[in-house]
């Protein structure tokens, strides 16, 4: 096939995709904005993203995001994987309350959680994140906008990287008026810039990607750190969780169990492979295969976790 023919073919495929998106968009537009989120506890709303990789069809809507309404104002927790998702969350929020938004907490640096930030930039809105988040955004922001272009096209271009002006090192309380949110920064785990958000009033914890359900956990920080943080999270007296990916409003701390088993299995397998002198590329294909049937996107993420985990455990 000549380059010209393949280009024409690709163009045709693109037109078909465009049409599919057009139908999809209209169906979506008919849905009430408010249905974008679910009230999982009084004043606590969350949206469940698709368990998938970011692509043009899901508009980057793959992470769980939400907001908490206080007497005085509202805190948004993650803005989603595109400006469009951020705007959908904002529209849903405005159907529910006209109180001002005072905080946007970014649970960590990953694009599916922050590319929607631009929808919330306004006077009076403070962006909140881990003390390492500004550095991580500086190191990765531009790279992500470029590397996600083949997957989500213009949505990557229009993403605005917003640097938090309120950073957390330890714990920080956000006052929403009659309602306090505790933002806690963690040691390197899923990334080196993870925070969780705990609403004492309802007992709901937004974990960001410190907790995965269904979606294969992703280790982009430290495998051993992740395991240790899971142990600490278990002690938090929450009732319900909004994990970074998978079902929302799930029982706590039961929500941690599947991920804990995965991380333990991966660690155990990798230790054995390191000890036997296996090479990293082979280890990446072998480790944690017993977990495969339990998770979505396993082949997309497990070899990657195993690669990074192997390099980490070699130092033990």
């Amino acid at each position, binding site marked *: 096939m000549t380059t010209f023919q393949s*280009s024409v073919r*690709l*163009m045709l495929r*693109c*037109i078909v*995709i*465009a*049409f599919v*998106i*057009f139908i*999809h*968009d*209209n169906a979506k*537009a008919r849905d009430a904005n408010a249905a974008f989120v679910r009230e999982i506890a009084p004043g606590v709303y969350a949206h469940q993203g698709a368990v998938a*990789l*970011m*692509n*043009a069809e899901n508009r980057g809507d793959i992470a769980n995001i939400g907001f908490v309404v206080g007497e005085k104002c509202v805190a948004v927790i993650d803005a989603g994987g595109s400006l469009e998702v951020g705007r959908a969350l904002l529209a849903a929020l405005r159907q529910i309350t006209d109180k001002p938004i005072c905080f946007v907490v970014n649970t960590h640096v*990953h*694009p599916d959680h922050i590319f929607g930030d631009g929808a919330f930039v306004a006077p009076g809105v403070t962006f909140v994140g881990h003390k390492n988040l*500004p*550095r991580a*955004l*500086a*190191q*990765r*922001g531009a*790279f*992500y906008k470029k*590397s996600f*272009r*083949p*997957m*989500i*096209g*213009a*949505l990557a*271009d229009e993403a605005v*990287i917003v*640097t938090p002006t309120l950073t957390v090192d330890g714990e920080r309380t956000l006052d929403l008026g009659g309602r306090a949110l505790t933002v806690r920064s963690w040691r*390197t785990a899923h*990334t*080196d810039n993870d925070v969780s958000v705990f609403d004492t009033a309802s007992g709901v914890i937004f974990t960001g990607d410190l907790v995965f359900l269904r979606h294969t956990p*992703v280790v*982009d920080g*430290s495998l051993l750190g992740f395991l240790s943080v899971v142990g600490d999270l278990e002690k938090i007296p929450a009732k319900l969780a909004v994990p970074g990916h998978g079902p929302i409003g799930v029982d706590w701390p039961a929500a941690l169990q599947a991920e804990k088993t995965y991380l333990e299995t991966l660690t155990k397998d990798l230790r054995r492979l390191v000890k036997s*002198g296996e*090479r*990293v*590329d082979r280890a*990446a294909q072998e480790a944690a295969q017993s977990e495969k049937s339990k998770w979505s996107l396993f082949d*997309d*993420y497990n070899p*990657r976790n*195993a*690669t*990074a985990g192997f*390099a980490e455990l*070699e*130092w033990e």
Partner: protein
Amino acid sequence: MVRGNLLAGSLVALMACSGALALDRPDLWPGLAKDIFASKAISKDADIATLEAPARAEDAAIVPMTINLAKPATQVRKATLVIDQNPAPMAASFTIGANSGLTQISTRVRVNDYTEVHLVSETTDGSLHMVERFVKAAGGCSAPSVKSLDEANANIGQMKFRTIAASDLGDARRREAQIMIRHPNNSGLQMDQVTRLYIPARYIDQVKVTQGDDLIFQMEGGISISEDPNFRFTFVPNGSKTITVEAHDTDGKVWRSQFPIEGAS
């Protein structure tokens, strides 16, 4: 509204697809070959050395590469790894000790994008030989940057050595060993416009591994080598009791460690 949606939808789909089209990247190799190897002729042949690289990078920050030297290994004086699409394509250049018995060396590199990877071997007669592999970029949120800069900086310069009980290395005397060096190997960051942050570049630019007075290998490298540089290699013990590793970084810091060679006479 309907019209607006159609337009927006089409636009996104076309952009998404043009992203796919953009995968036909310009061929940087002719220019790189000229710059790095001073316009010397490079023959494309796999008789001298071969390169094992994954078809797809699993983690953009840790992509294993293995160089295999064909027999007789002593023929190769220098093996250079070039990752065409990386910001600093010249990833590593390994000078091989003439009496080292080294037949294989593996390391881990960062891969930013879909890229050709070239291995150019220089033989004792001065001629250059090249093999190439194509590596697809890691998808998703994988980034070719340091995973935990604080920890990496805290443990900088720490070294670990181990010998690996290997199976068949083609010679009963041959051993396999691994050297690991804690270092962020950070590409640094110019003043970032959004965050106003500046992170200086700091990376290992030279590693020298010897047994007694004999060189096993010496590496000159850059920021394409993964954090915590890691080298796994074969060698034939020359009777020395220890292996010496000396690492040098761009801040001028030198770390030197000695490790006993198991079963050395």
